[in-house]
């Protein structure tokens, strides 16, 4: 693998040009480059629409994917994932341990299109069940990707927001550890009601940092995977993490057998904190990961399958929105300078989603999702989509979108 862990192209050997960008260092340069980018990307976009027939088709079978080894040029790519297996699957593009793009809950028998803007390098792709072997994805550089890499805007303006986000991850991870400890204590004391009560805040703490956590593919699977992704579903020995606890507490209504599960979760959460702090996030990924998170509400999780035993879905959506708003607030000073309209769109959409969720607020949390009507679920999905679309404007506005 010759790309770096954070998905950026390999650093060039000559430092001086990069330093000159850094020393000039100001948003001035970033905006100028961004404007250049934006117009270039608009032009490239038009070209791409003209080539709309260029999809790569990947078929997911019961035990593998076909083709298993793909090569595409850098830039915007479309992948049509056909689910030829008998259960819902998710499909991910991985850069080392980090998720670059993903699509959850592709229904058996149907296909979904995933759009991914790819930098040159070597990636892995998942193929259905977590136990299935992975495929490879080789992305070749193009003239445009080389030019884009050279014209990258100054990163100095992003040091502040990225640092703040890392601090946020640190404090929220600490909160997550605390709430999972509370959950563990309740389980150990055998108190089902207390354990059920402790589940929601722990889940909310996770959901606040889910956009970042979900970049760590394997660890996130251990913490957050649903029964469907395992061969034997709820009975699978590998099924653990939050949803295994959820299953025990809310479906089987017992703490039996949950002690080792919550202990493993504690260990995984500790690892999660460590890895979140060790992994760097590139500026463009800060926005794109919250886009993905909101899209997954709009396209998948509004169906209530995420918290199918506890029905705490709205609790999770609200926490996701908090985490998304944190990212927006950190990028706000940069967006205000360059793109007030994008910011306005985001704020409007974010308030709309917040209002939508607040309608479902109760004295001690939110309405259980099984009591949320289909129309209300659609409303949530629509508002989440609007927000995702608005958030899509961030990377181009900041000159980060490549092609």
């Amino acid at each position: 693998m010759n790309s770096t862990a954070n998905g950026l192209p390999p650093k060039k050997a000559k430092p001086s040009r990069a330093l000159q960008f850094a020393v000039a260092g100001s948003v001035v340069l970033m905006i100028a480059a961004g404007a250049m980018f934006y117009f270039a990307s608009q032009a490239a976009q038009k070209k791409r629409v003209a080539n709309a027939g260029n999809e790569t088709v990947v078929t997911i079978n019961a035990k593998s994917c076909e083709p298993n080894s793909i090569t595409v040029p850098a830039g915007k790519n479309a992948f049509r994932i056909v689910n030829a297996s008998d259960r819902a699957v998710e499909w991910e593009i991985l850069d080392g341990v980090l998720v670059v793009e993903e699509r959850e809950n592709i229904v058996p028998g149907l296909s979904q299109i995933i759009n991914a803007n790819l930098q040159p390098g070597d990636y892995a792709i998942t193929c259905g069940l977590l136990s299935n072997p992975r495929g490879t994805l080789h992305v070749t550089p193009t003239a445009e990707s080389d030019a884009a890499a050279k014209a990258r805007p100054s990163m100095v303006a992003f040091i502040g927001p990225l640092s703040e986000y890392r601090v946020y991850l640190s404090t929220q991870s600490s909160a997550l550890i605390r709430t999972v400890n509370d959950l563990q204590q309740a389980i150990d004391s055998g108190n089902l009601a207390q354990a059920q009560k402790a589940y929601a805040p722990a889940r909310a703490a996770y959901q606040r940092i889910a956009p970042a956590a979900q970049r760590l593919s394997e660890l996130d699977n251990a913490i957050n995977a649903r029964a469907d992704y395992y061969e034997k579903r709820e009975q699978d020995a590998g099924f653990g993490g939050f949803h295994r606890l959820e299953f025990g507490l809310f479906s089987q209504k017992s703490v039996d057998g949950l002690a080792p599960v919550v202990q493993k979760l504690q260990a995984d959460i500790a690892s999660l904190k460590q890895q979140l702090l060790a992994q760097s996030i590139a500026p463009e990924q800060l926005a794109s990961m919250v886009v993905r998170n909101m899209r997954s509400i709009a396209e998948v999780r509004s169906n209530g399958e995420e918290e199918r035993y506890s029905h705490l879905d709205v609790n999770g959506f609200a926490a996701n929105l908090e985490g998304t708003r944190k990212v927006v607030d950190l990028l706000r000073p940069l967006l205000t300078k360059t793109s007030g309209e994008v910011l306005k769109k985001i704020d409007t959409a974010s308030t709309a989603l917040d209002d939508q969720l607040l309608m479902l607020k109760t004295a001690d949390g939110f309405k259980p999702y099984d009591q949320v009507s289909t129309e209300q679920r659609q409303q949530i999905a629509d508002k989440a989509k609007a927000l995702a679309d608005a958030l899509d404007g961030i990377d181009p506005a900041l000159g980060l979108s490549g092609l």
Partner: protein
Amino acid sequence: MKKSPLALLLTFGVLQTSMSAFAATAPLDLVTPVSDYKIYVTENVDTLAADTQKFTDAIKKGDLAAAKKLFPTTRLSYESIEPIAELFSDLDASIDSREDDHENGVKADDFTGFHRLEYALFSQNTTKDQAVFADKLLADVKELQSRIADMTFPPEKVVGGAAALMEEVAATKLSGEEDRYSHTDLYDFQGNVDGSKKIVDLFKPQLEQSDKAFVAKVEKNFATVDKILAKYKTKDGGYETYDKVKEQDRKALAGPVNTLAEDLSQMRGKLGLN
């Protein structure tokens, strides 16, 4: 006009100018140390809040001896995070201004904070009527805590903070005028030095890429300062009063302190920050 060989080399871009002589620190490499610094500052301000609570409780209870004991140790956390605290000039003034900063000196209405309490505790030897200043100090520290939580730390202020702390030492700690009633300046001195060293430590990997000799020189000067300060440690982990510092030690501190201020003033440039 005949160009000098130097000018010719510069024209052809062969010779590195002093600007491009710094090996580039990729800006995103600074994210980890900048955020680690915010975590450090948050921990310190949380400690400051907890310690200030105890300090002001002692004052309000009328426990003069306890309040005097807690004064220097409470200030330690503030002095280590000075570069961030002073970004909030209104709070810095109400928490840490000295009598000189006010035309009416100790009688000024707006002379509040640590040194106002220091004046009462050590010069007037009383806790009487100090509740209002104690309450204000606690409120200001809590406000500082909340503003720090909400503020994105500008990277150049973080990196520049190492030099700023040494400027603070050079300008106010060598003379013993910071804590003129209690003479507990050595605590503040150590706090400033520790805060500065923390920043250098966090950015050490990036600095060493750029200039290993620089880091070695800076660390040597920090070690010299620490060694001299350590001579004045007391059995309970505190420090002697400033009047006990020998003249030759005061002079011995001036050299490394001023040299650190000079050297650390280059940190931002070496890391490619404005």
